[in-house]
């Protein structure tokens, strides 16, 4: 088999891109998990060491990355449930496209208030607000 196939294996469309996004979010979340177990392991070193590394989680830029993490996990979870429905529900393949739009819809509905609560402190600290 040629190393560089002519054209693509897939026709594209939502089926392919939802799958590509599932892989990318999966890899990203998995690498974060490695780091997260390592930083949590500092509770065995000393309270100071742990609090120091957790302080970085509270900074504005990392706080924004946390919103990205939650968004990635939420997509991976919702689309994962869609994949399970396609695999095990008799009508799953027929409704896979509608289920993808449901995934996107639920994602937006959860992420809008979620982002608000996750970023509330950072926005107040950066732009000031009445105490």
């Amino acid at each position, binding site marked *: 088999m040629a190393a560089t196939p002519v054209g693509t294996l897939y026709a594209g469309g939502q089926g392919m891109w939802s799958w590509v996004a599932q892989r990318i979010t999966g890899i990203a979340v998995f690498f974060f998990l490695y780091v997260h177990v390592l930083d949590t392991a500092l509770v065995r070193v000393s*309270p100071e060491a742990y609090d120091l590394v957790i302080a970085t989680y509270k900074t504005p830029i990392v706080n924004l990355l946390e919103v990205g993490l939650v968004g990635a996990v939420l997509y991976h979870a919702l*689309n994962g449930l869609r994949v399970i429905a396609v695999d095990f529900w008799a009508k799953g393949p027929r409704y896979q496209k509608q289920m993808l739009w449901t995934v996107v819809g639920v994602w937006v509905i959860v992420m809008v208030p979620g982002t608000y609560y996750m970023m509330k402190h950072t926005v107040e600290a950066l732009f000031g607000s009445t105490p």
Partner: protein
Amino acid sequence: MSVSDRPLDLALPGARRSKQRSNFELYSWIFMRVSGIVLVFLVLGHLFIMNILDGGVQRINFAFVAGRWASPFWQIWDLAMLWLAMLHGTNGLRTIINDYAERDQTRFWLKMLLYVSSAFIILLGTLVIFTFDPNLG
């Protein structure tokens, strides 16, 4: 076969097929779905508690962890989440390495690196949960 996932590597042209028959890929495929459903609750619950509820990440410190791990409920929650998420992620990356690393040597060493680092993280995390000392320091 589903549109959005490929349970077996039969669809891959040039896919390597093992000489001896094994159900490992079937069990791995089932494990991804079963662990995935459990992780939806464990991980989304964890993210909601840690990042959104009651001030989110701003309230987390050593004392907060000590308060949570005083309860066996959260210890078991975190232990189950650690093992399931690590195995789910390791198996996912194994699939991705099999898909994209074309040379046998590359595939072998990438997977060895993956298995060794995953085993280290799982053991470290387990050790931390079981040996946590709230009076440390």
